[in-house]
């Protein structure tokens, strides 16, 4: 059960970072809708959500340009110095990717990419449970196939 303060923080996060509407945020956090609407309006949550979305879009653009530059420099590298410069650009992209992982900044437009991430996460979970808690894995196993089917259906 969330404290009142935690519910407000979560409601703001849902609206600003996840893009939920006020009704969904109110339902999720148990806060009264009219109160949430008033506070969200006074604190300009929708404006903050717009800026948050622009932030994500700018991060994606910067990462894409960084990667393009790294690939271009590798393609055109002719001298050892070129190769070193290309390696530095690749390192710069890797640092950016590490700080802003793709799965957090991909607007969910590519179902295949999203599914690859979901499958990868599921495989990691299975591997983890195989090492750490086989009982939990045995309990989960009957549901894995139907869960995978549900993911595929959701992607269309």
């Amino acid at each position, binding site marked *: 059960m969330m404290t009142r303060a935690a519910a407000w923080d979560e409601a703001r996060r849902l609206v600003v970072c996840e893009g939920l509407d006020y009704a969904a945020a109110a339902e999720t956090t148990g806060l009264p809708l009219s109160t949430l609407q008033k506070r969200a309006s006074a604190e300009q949550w929708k*404006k903050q959500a*717009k*800026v948050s*979305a*622009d*932030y*994500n*879009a*700018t*991060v*994606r*653009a*910067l990462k894409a*340009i*960084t990667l393009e*530059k790294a690939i271009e420099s590798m393609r055109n590298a002719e001298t050892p110095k070129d190769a070193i410069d290309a390696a*530095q650009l690749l*390192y*710069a992209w890797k*640092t*950016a990717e*590490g*700080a*802003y992982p793709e799965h957090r900044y991909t*607007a969910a437009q590519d179902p295949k990419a999203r599914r690859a991430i979901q499958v990868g996460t599921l495989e990691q979970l299975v591997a983890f449970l195989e090492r750490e808690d086989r009982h939990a894995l045995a309990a989960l196993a009957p549901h894995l196939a139907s869960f995978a089917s549900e993911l595929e259906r959701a992607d269309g």
Partner: protein
Amino acid sequence: MAADRTPALRRGFILLALHGQYPLPLARPMFERAVAAFYTGDDAGLARDIAYLIEKKLMTVDTERLMNRAVETCKLTAEGCDVVEGATQIPGVEIVRA
């Protein structure tokens, strides 16, 4: 040959990073940590972009005293806030709109 958008995008990214704190300042070490990923191997680039944004009056860097220590802080200006929120546009600053 297409112009390199990186400088303008990085400046936009700096303003976006500061907007979360607006109107409050952000301590310089925290600010640099927030933007460092896109300046890997290019410390001079960060200094240049900060100087540009200060000159354009979109951000400020001040020294404040906190518990008897000098703390450098970075802050978005009202003009910088307008750029982030889309009310104004500056040619050397790019923010990708979702």
